[in-house]
């Protein structure tokens, strides 16, 4: 596997594994991250996967750039092209439209489709999680159907409720916590995705599938989630 390694100050090496957002590059990033964790290299403190790169942070008291770079090259060399890690597929229940997704009519209008058709297209595929960022647990997803591409709202909202599922330009994603934002909101998940100390149900390298639910199911799952955190 080809790898280009660049220094990040005194504490990091950025392994660049491609130049475009693609399933193949995403799978390489996930494979290298797994290999780094399995290798238990002394002094490596954490890894941050992104679309086409893996940031590997080290403690400069216990490791140095040349040593970490050599390890990364060795690990990348051992990863066969076909040996990419598939990741898990995680179901995320979403109640679409109405008070849960106020912009669903606008997205449907923009696409020239019915609201039902938008829901069918949005929930009809799996989306690879390339990275988490912007907010804790916010997934950068690939693979939105082109027909659903919708420009961001002209006036961003100052408060988007936690769990909102939206479309911003060519991307779709979930707001794990209340936040300002300009995406078009099409639904909401009852899953509690911002819970420090509890593992997220997904990580970079996994895939997400949105599963339509109704308001009653939303309330049932939301109640269970609240109990799980009590």
């Amino acid at each position: 596997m080809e790898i280009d390694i660049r220094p990040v100050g005194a504490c990091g090496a950025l392994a660049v594994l491609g130049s475009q957002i693609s399933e193949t590059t995403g799978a390489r990033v996930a494979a290298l991250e797994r290999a780094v964790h399995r290798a238990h290299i002394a002094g490596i403190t954490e890894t941050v996967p992104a679309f086409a790169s893996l940031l590997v942070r080290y403690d400069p008291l216990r490791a140095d750039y040349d040593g970490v770079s050599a390890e990364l090259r060795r690990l990348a060399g051992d990863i066969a092209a076909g040996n990419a890690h598939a990741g898990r597929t995680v179901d995320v229940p979403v109640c679409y439209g109405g008070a849960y997704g106020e912009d669903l009519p606008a997205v449907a209008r923009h696409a020239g489709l019915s609201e039902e058709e938008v829901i069918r297209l949005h929930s009809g595929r799996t989306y690879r999680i390339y990275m988490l960022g912007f907010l804790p647990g916010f997934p950068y997803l690939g693979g939105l159907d082109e027909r659903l591409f919708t420009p961001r709202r002209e006036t961003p909202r100052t408060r988007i409720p936690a769990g909102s599922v939206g479309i911003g330009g060519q991307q779709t994603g979930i707001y794990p916590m209340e936040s300002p934002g300009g995406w078009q909101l099409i639904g909401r998940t009852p899953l509690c995705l911002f819970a420090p100390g509890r593992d997220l149900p997904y990580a970079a390298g996994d895939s997400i599938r949105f599963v339509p639910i109704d308001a009653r199911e939303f309330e049932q799952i939301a109640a269970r989630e609240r109990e799980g955190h009590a």
Partner: protein
Amino acid sequence: MNILFPGPLSAVQDMGRTGHAAQGYPECGACDKYALALGNLLCGNPETAAAIEMTLAGATVQFDQDTVIALTGAACDAKLDGQSIPLNAPMRVPAGATLETGMFTAGLRGYLCVQGGVDVAPVLGSRSTDQKCRIGGLEGRALRKGDHLPIGKPAPGYAFSRAAHAAKVLLDKPWLMRPRTAHAYLGGQVIPLLRAVPGPQDDAFPSESLRTFFSGLYAVTPDSNRMGVKLSGPAVASKNGSDILSDGIVEGSVQISANGQPILMLADHQTTGGYAKIATVIAPDLSAAAQLRPGELAAFRPITAQQAVRLSRETAQQLRYIKELIDHD
């Protein structure tokens, strides 16, 4: 201890919430980590204990137990029950005493360390306040008038006399009070030369832009905060726009924004970003960067990743030397 007056921005910070960037959690923690480590050592804490970071001006605090404190970082005329007290030194504080920190006379960020550390509940292994995610510190927010902060149990084996002696050694060897950094002098102003490793996206810039960046003088703008120091100076032009595929950011990353101006990321930085990063300032020099006030100047100097590792080790050694002064006769 009780917060009688918090100052413009005071919050609980430690060495940061590391290890969770892959999930999108910002690091947070003290912006001037050397000052926090020094203050903690002087009052008998591990370097990593939580303290109060104060910005631009200090807090007024009343203590509800006998303890030892140390003030580090920004300079100020702090008064304990009306009597001026020295900075970078341990101070005994009787229960009921009031510390008034006042306006900072030089530097931007001061640290009030207390023996035993500020004992709020850790979240994901850190007591640092993350104001954006509203976690850590006290209710995930900046301190307010009337807040009460619990103080932890002191670590055993602390001898105040040895810490006081160490503070005297620091007065004789003032360079030990800060990480060793490079400076230039311009019209009476001390300008920190922030050492930075070019990359990871230095190749997004033509060589004359790299020369501009590493030779220009940059002023800190007023919209700087704990997320980043926004700078204004000679524009750094990129080859094909400064947008990149988002990738991981560290404290010290220098992004070049669309208008060609650098932003030096500090403790509250986002975990990933989509602007090209021309260089990364090394950790020891972030202490100097964290003390820059709006209007003050800084410049960047290129070093290699190998030099960067060596300089980080020297800074750690300096703190170890101070710790040994305090730990042993």
